[in-house]
């Protein structure tokens, strides 16, 4: 895709960013989010992060690009080390450092 078509694709994608991220903000008068519904929506961000993190930790991608459960991978060891590291240090940089150290070590050893 080149030239005009590419910019047209970008233009449509801008509109999609606006629509998807703004939908309920913009429709505030028609679809009111009640306090009780908001109470539960507060749990949405954690759920989204988990769904972003988990596939990178307990799965590996096979040759057909499908995720396969893998409980013996450098990622899993790195991930577990990161969780423990965070619980002890409460620091993001320490968490990354501990996780990456174990991940890298496991890549050489496994």
């Amino acid at each position, binding site marked *: 895709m080149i030239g005009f078509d590419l910019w047209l694709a970008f233009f449509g*994608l801008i509109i999609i960013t606006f629509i998807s991220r703004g939908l309920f903000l913009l429709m505030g008068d028609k679809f009111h989010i009640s306090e009780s519904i908001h109470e539960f929506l507060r749990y949405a961000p954690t759920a989204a*992060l988990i769904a972003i993190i988990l596939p990178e930790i307990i799965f590996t991608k096979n040759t057909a690009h499908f995720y396969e459960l893998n409980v013996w991978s450098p990622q899993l060891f790195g991930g577990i080390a990161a969780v423990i590291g965070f619980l002890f240090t409460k620091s993001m940089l320490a968490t990354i450092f501990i996780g990456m150290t174990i991940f890298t070590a496991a890549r050489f050893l496994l």
Partner: protein
Amino acid sequence: MYLKIVGQSPAFFEGLKAMAEPAFALIAWSIVTNIALLSAGLSAFHTFWFNILVYAGSAQLAVIPLIVGDYPLWTIWLTALIVNSRFVIFSAALQPYFKKYSFVQKLGIGYVNGDIVFVKFLDRFPIPKHGNKAEIQLFYFLGLALGNWLAWQFGVLLAIAFETQIPGSWGLGFAGTLALVALVIPTIKNKTALVSALMAALTCVLTVNLPYRLTIVCSVIAGVLAAAWMDHVISKVAR
């Protein structure tokens, strides 16, 4: 005028500062995402504008094979819409905070939202404030959003400048994932949050191979429903 008010607000800088640590994750992801765009064949010039204009990391990554492969426009747009569907739920969660602003302002607020912005914002303001203190919510949000934007675009520039010198073997993407681990654990504060998180994790495992990264929106729905269910159970026991 309005920019000056925002610029003088402590809440704005508090938000900007709150992005300092997660910025590392964002830069790492941005580099990984944009190296993928560049190596798929998008030029540096187009990659730059793609990020400035569309500003939707996961959706950009999902549509790039379709763009390169000359697929019909509607398939590109539909794919982006589905990958972005989690943001529709996020926009519902943000609605009570920003009701009083104009249509155009709300359009802008939604546009600059991102996964980490959303997590940090709800962590700081779990319950919407109204009245004359309500503005600090917007200022804090804008601080987060600016930090998010800067970190992402910085990653774009690094990817363009050093595309060939950054080997995949560094595990840069994994470092970004680990940063998110440090971001997600403190949000699990009580029993309801724990059950919600476990339900989201289970749903993610079951739906991980769905196309269009639908596993994210499925997990969000499961997490929210689990929270509602837990609330119901707890109130029943209390009675």
